[in-house]
C-alpha cells in the first residue's frame, strides 16, 4: 500500500466535489482525506485528496479519469517523498480540578503543540505536523482524557521549482497576490 496525494486544480463551480468523488466511488477507492480551498488564482480551487493503493497503474488511470471532468484544469499525483505536506489537529483535553496537570512546556518543546484556548475545565491544543507526529502526540495526551479530537486533511505542495499553477492552461488569470 502506497500513499498517494492527488492535487486537482478546478474551476470553482457547484457540484464539482461530487463530480470528483464519484470517480473514486465507481472504482471502489476509499478517500483517506480531502481538503479544498481556493488557490492564489481567483476562481481556481485546489483539491488535495489522499488515498492508499497498492497499484500505481490504478492510480494513474484514476488521475486520467479525473482529468476528463470538464471543469478540471490539471491533476497531479504524488508519492510522499515528492511533496511537502502537513496536517493540523485540535485536541480538547479535560482539565478538571485535581487532575494531573498538563506539562505545557514539554508539550510546546517536545511536540511543537500549542494551547490555543482554555477554560476552567478544558484546554484546546493545536498540533500541526505529519499524520505520524499527530498520532504520537495523540498517544502522549490520551491519558489526560481527550474530550474531542479533530484532524484536517492533508495540504501539500510539490517539491518542484515551479508552482503547480504554472502548469494550468494559459489564460488571463486574476491573482490574489
Amino acid at each position: 500500500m502506497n500513499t498517494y496525494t492527488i492535487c486537482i486544480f478546478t474551476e470553482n463551480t457547484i457540484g464539482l466535489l461530487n463530480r470528483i468523488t464519484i470517480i473514486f466511488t465507481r472504482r471502489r477507492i476509499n478517500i483517506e482525506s480531502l481538503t479544498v480551498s481556493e488557490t492564489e488564482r481567483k476562481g481556481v480551487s485546489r483539491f488535495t485528496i489522499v488515498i492508499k493503493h497498492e497499484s500505481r497503474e490504478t492510480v494513474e488511470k484514476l488521475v486520467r479519469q479525473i482529468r476528463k471532468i470538464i471543469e478540471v484544469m490539471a491533476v497531479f499525483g504524488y508519492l510522499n517523498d515528492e511533496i511537502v505536506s502537513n496536517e493540523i489537529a485540535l485536541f480538547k483535553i479535560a482539565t478538571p480540578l485535581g487532575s494531573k496537570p498538563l506539562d505545557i512546556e514539554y508539550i510546546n518543546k517536545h511536540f511543537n503543540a500549542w494551547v490555543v484556548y482554555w477554560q476552567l475545565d478544558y484546554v484546546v491544543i493545536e498540533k500541526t505536523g505529519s499524520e505520524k507526529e499527530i498520532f504520537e502526540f495523540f498517544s502522549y495526551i490520551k491519558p489526560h482524557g481527550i474530550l474531542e479530537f479533530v484532524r484536517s486533511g492533508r495540504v501539500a505542495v510539490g517539491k518542484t521549482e515551479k508552482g503547480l499553477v504554472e502548469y494550468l492552461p494559459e489564460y488571463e488569470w486574476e491573482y490574489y497576490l
Partner: protein
Amino acid sequence: MNTTVSEITAEEPQPAVPAAKLIKPLTGAEALMQSLVAEGVDTIFGYPGGAIMPVYDALYDYQDRLNHILVRHEQGAAHAAEGYARVTGRAGVCLVTSGPGATNLVTGIADAMIDSTPMVCLVGQVGVKLLGTDAFQETDVIGVTMPITKWNYQVTSADEIPEIVAKAFYLAQTGRPGPVVIDITKNAQQELMTKPFEYQKCEKVISYRPRLVPKQDQLEKAAELINKAKKPYMLVGHGVLIAKAEQELLAFVEKTGIPVATTLLGQSAISVDHPLYMGWLGMHGNYGPNVMTDQCDLLIGVGMRFDDRVTGNPDLFARQAKVVHIEIDPAEIDKIIKADAPVIGDAKEVLTRLMPLVHQNDHTAWRNEFRKYDDIEDQKVTHPAIAPTTEKIKMAEAIDLLSKKTRGEAVMVADVGQHQMMTSAYYEFKKPHSLVTSGGLGTMGFALPAAFGAKVGDPSREVIAIIGDGCFQMTIQELGTIAQSKLPVKIIILNNNFLGMVRQWQQLFFDRRYSFVELQNPDFITIGKGFGIDGHTCANREDLSASLDTLLASDKPYLLEIIVEKEENVFPMVPAGTSVASIRLE
C-alpha cells in the same frame, strides 16, 4: 455566429429614444429558442410536461424553424437523438420535463455516453425557490446524470441561457463527443433577460482542451513500429467514423497494405468490398479477424477502446504484438491494453500526419493468412446460415437478402441481441455511417426510436430497423411517433419468440436451462395497423424475397415481421472472459 435580437426585433430607430428601450427583452424560453436556431439546430425530440411548459409555449412560435418530433416516451427521445447524431455527426437535441421526464432519459444518456454520441438534453426543473423542497416532479437531475454525462449544468436565470447552450453544444460535439444535460429551472424559462440577447458560438473552454493534433514524437514512434512490422493489423473503431476519417483511413491502408478489421461500431468505416477489409472482430465477429490478433506482430487500434467484447480476456489478448493506440481520449490509453506507442489525437489528424511517415508496403502474404480462416468460416458458419436447408427462415439469410436488395447502401439500425450480431455479420456495408446500434450499453429498445432519429437526420437514405421480438416490445409505443411524423422508416422484426441471445447463452453455458426467455407475443402486425402502420408477416422462405420487396417499395413506414427459426445461434462466438483462441464456430 452572432445574432442580436435587437437587430431582428427593433422597430425603426427613433433617435430621441435610447437604443436600449427599443430592445424587446426575451424570456428565458425565447432565448432558448433563439439560441437553438443560432446554433443551427433543426430538430428537437421531445415530450412536454409541467416544468418545461414555458419552453413549449415559446416553441409554438418557432415551429417553422425547429422541427419538433413528439415521442411517446422520453427514452424514445433520447435514442432518437442518438440516431440523429450518429448519421449527421451533429448533436441530437432532446426536450423534456422535470422529474420522470428527465429520469426517463437516463438510459439514453448512459447509452450516448458509452458510445460517444453527441447529444444535448434540455430538461425542465422546478423553480429555483422550490429546489430541494421535494416539490412536485422534482428530481436532482444534475446528481442523477453526473456520472453519465460529459457535462451537465443547472441554469437558474434567463441571462445564462445563451452562453450555456453554446457551451453545451461545443462540449457535446468536440473532442470525444458525449451527452450534455442542461437543467433549466422554471423561473429561468419564464423571467425576462436583463440584457440584450446575443448568441456567440462557443469555441473554447479554459479547462477543456481536447488534443486533436497529435504530438510529433508520438507520430514518429508509431510510424517506426508500423514501418518495422512484418505482420501489422489495424483495428478500426467508432472514432474513425466520428472523426469522419474514412478517406484518410483508406489512403493510409492502401499505402501501407495493412489488413483492417472493424469493431462493431466501426462497421461501415471501410467498405466490405475493399480488399484490405478482413471483417469485424469481437465476441461474434469473424473468425480470421479475431484469431489474427494472436498472430500479428503489431496491432494498430484507431478510435477504439479495446472493449471487453473485443479483447475477451485482456491478459490473453495479443500478447505477442506491439500496440499502437491512436485515440482522442487520453484516459483510454493503457486502460485495458498497454500501448507501446500511444498517439493522442483526432483520428483524421493522426492518419493524415502519419501518411508521410509510413512506407509504401504490400503485406499480401500476411493478408492471405486471414483468408484461410475465411474459408473455414464460410464453410462452417456463413454458407449454412445464408443458404440453409432448414424449414424455417434463418436470421442470417434474411439480412443477407436484404443486403443484396439494398446493395449494402441502407442505414441499418439494429437493436440488441442476436439480430444485432446478424445484422453486423451479414449486412455488407458499402457506405460510411450505416450501422446505428447500441454497442457499449447494449440497450434493448434502442432501434425503433433511433431509426426515426436517423431518418430525420438523413431523409435521403433508406433507414431500416432490425429488431427482435423482445426488443420491439421495449419501445413499441414509438410506432405512434413514426406514424404521426409520417417518417418512412422500414421496420423488420426478426421474430423467434425468444429472448434469443439470452437463450443462446443458457443453451451453451447454463445447460439448456431456459429460464424466462420464451415470449408470448402479441400480433405485431395488428398492433402496427392500430398505429396506422401497414405491414405483413412472412413465415415462409419462398415469400421472403417478395416480402422484402414490398417493404422496400413502400413510401410510408412499413412493418415486416419475419418468423425465424426459434433456436438459431450466433457464431462465431468468443465466450465471455476467454481468449480469442477459444472462439467457437458451432
